[in-house]
């Protein structure tokens, strides 16, 4: 089945392509999209890919996300590519890359870290020690958090 038959092209917006198969829901979640914002969004999972065998795609209509917003995807889907669509055409194409510093969004893997104490206002902050394999160091407790641990956070968050 061709991709075009599954979900039609969008006119304006952002297409996140080449997401490792099975990770589209995590990508949507890491972008902070809950579904109640009124954004028109299509999720295509386990479709054919010449590069990856199988891949997921997320199409967001009507919103051009900035690379700062999108680079966070690299934490869980490093192969993802971004297409900014204007008038049905690809206006810009980019690869996501892990930022050097991350604030908020993900949690420190150490339950005894100050950033995991619900009532305190310590926001999780990380320095990227290594991009591949992904290793984040917590600014507060200096414990490492890996890609596997980040993916787990988003899965458990969704109650799957």
């Amino acid at each position, binding site marked *: 089945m061709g991709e075009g038959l599954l979900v039609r092209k969008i006119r304006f917006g952002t297409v996140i392509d080449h997401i490792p198969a099975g990770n589209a829901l995590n990508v949507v979640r890491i972008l902070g999209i809950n579904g109640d914002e009124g954004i028109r969004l299509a999720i295509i999972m386990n479709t054919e890919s010449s590069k990856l065998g199988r891949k997921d795609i997320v199409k967001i209509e009507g919103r051009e996300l900035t690379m700062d917003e999108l680079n966070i995807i690299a934490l869980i889907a490093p192969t993802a590519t971004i297409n900014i669509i204007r008038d049905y055409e690809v206006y810009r194409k980019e690869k996501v890359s892990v930022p050097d510093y991350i604030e908020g969004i993900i949690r420190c893997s150490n339950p*005894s870290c100050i950033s995991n104490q619900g009532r305190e206002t310590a926001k999780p902050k990380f320095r990227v020690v290594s991009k591949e394999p992904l290793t984040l*160091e917590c600014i507060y407790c*200096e*414990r490492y958090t890996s890609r596997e641990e980040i993916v787990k956070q988003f899965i458990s968050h969704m109650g799957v």
Partner: protein
Amino acid sequence: MMFKGRDVISILDFTSEDLMKIFRVASEMEAYVKTGVDLLRDRILALLFFEPSTRTMFSFQTAMYRLGGKCLVFSGVERTSIAKGETLGDTIRMMDGYANAIVIRHKIEGAAKYAAEIAEAPVINAGDGSHHHPTQAMLDLYTIWKARGRIGGLKIGVLGDLKYGRASTSFIFGASLFKPETLYLISPPELQVKPEVRDKLGEMNINYVETTDLTNVIKELDVLYVTRIQKERFPDLAEYERVKGSYQINRSLLTGVKDDLMILHPLPRVDEISPEVDETRYAYYFEEARNAIPVRMALLKLILLGD
């Protein structure tokens, strides 16, 4: 780096030159450890010990009193508003208004750094969970400097629970700032240093060896830093007994060691150093505990008055 108003969160916030400055001031303070000197009159130090302490709390208190200053102290949270559910953040905001500097011990890792972000007053970490205990490392290193005249270039062994021990982690980093000839990390496999520590030693280009074998290594050492092996870390009690036995420092283990070997311990000790060692020339751990006063006096003076 300037000392006035500076936070003390990790020993790695300091350079070896910074630490030498503290040690030089500490040796000036030695003259006043029993008589006092009126440098910090009308200054108030808040001692917030969310986790109980004896040595660290009383030595900070003593140091502040000897400098002519005053302390606000709590140890344990039973009779404070924290027992009513007050957050750490709010407690710090309040104490920041009362005191000139804040010393904090907390079981949560990163608590001191968080407190330092909130408080305008300088914050001194007196232990955050199994993370850091920088002022302990300062007095440990001062003990070596005082006895040997140098810290760099020595063969230093660190023994015990290197995974969860905050004193051992801070000592490992502190000793590394002075470039030891070799750093021996001696522990049972289940209590080896965390990957985070290993990576930092790599970044600092430290020549370090991880081993389980104390008996052979001890003969090489100039300094042996002993820490407690904590029973609760072992799922299997028989394994704990075996490990504990192999790491006990007694007279027979000390046969053939260097004449000027220094044995340090942050205390409290349980049975990792036999009392028969106390009388030997190698035992420096009680002097180390006494050195807490001049070192903490020096640190308070530098932070509150400047260089």
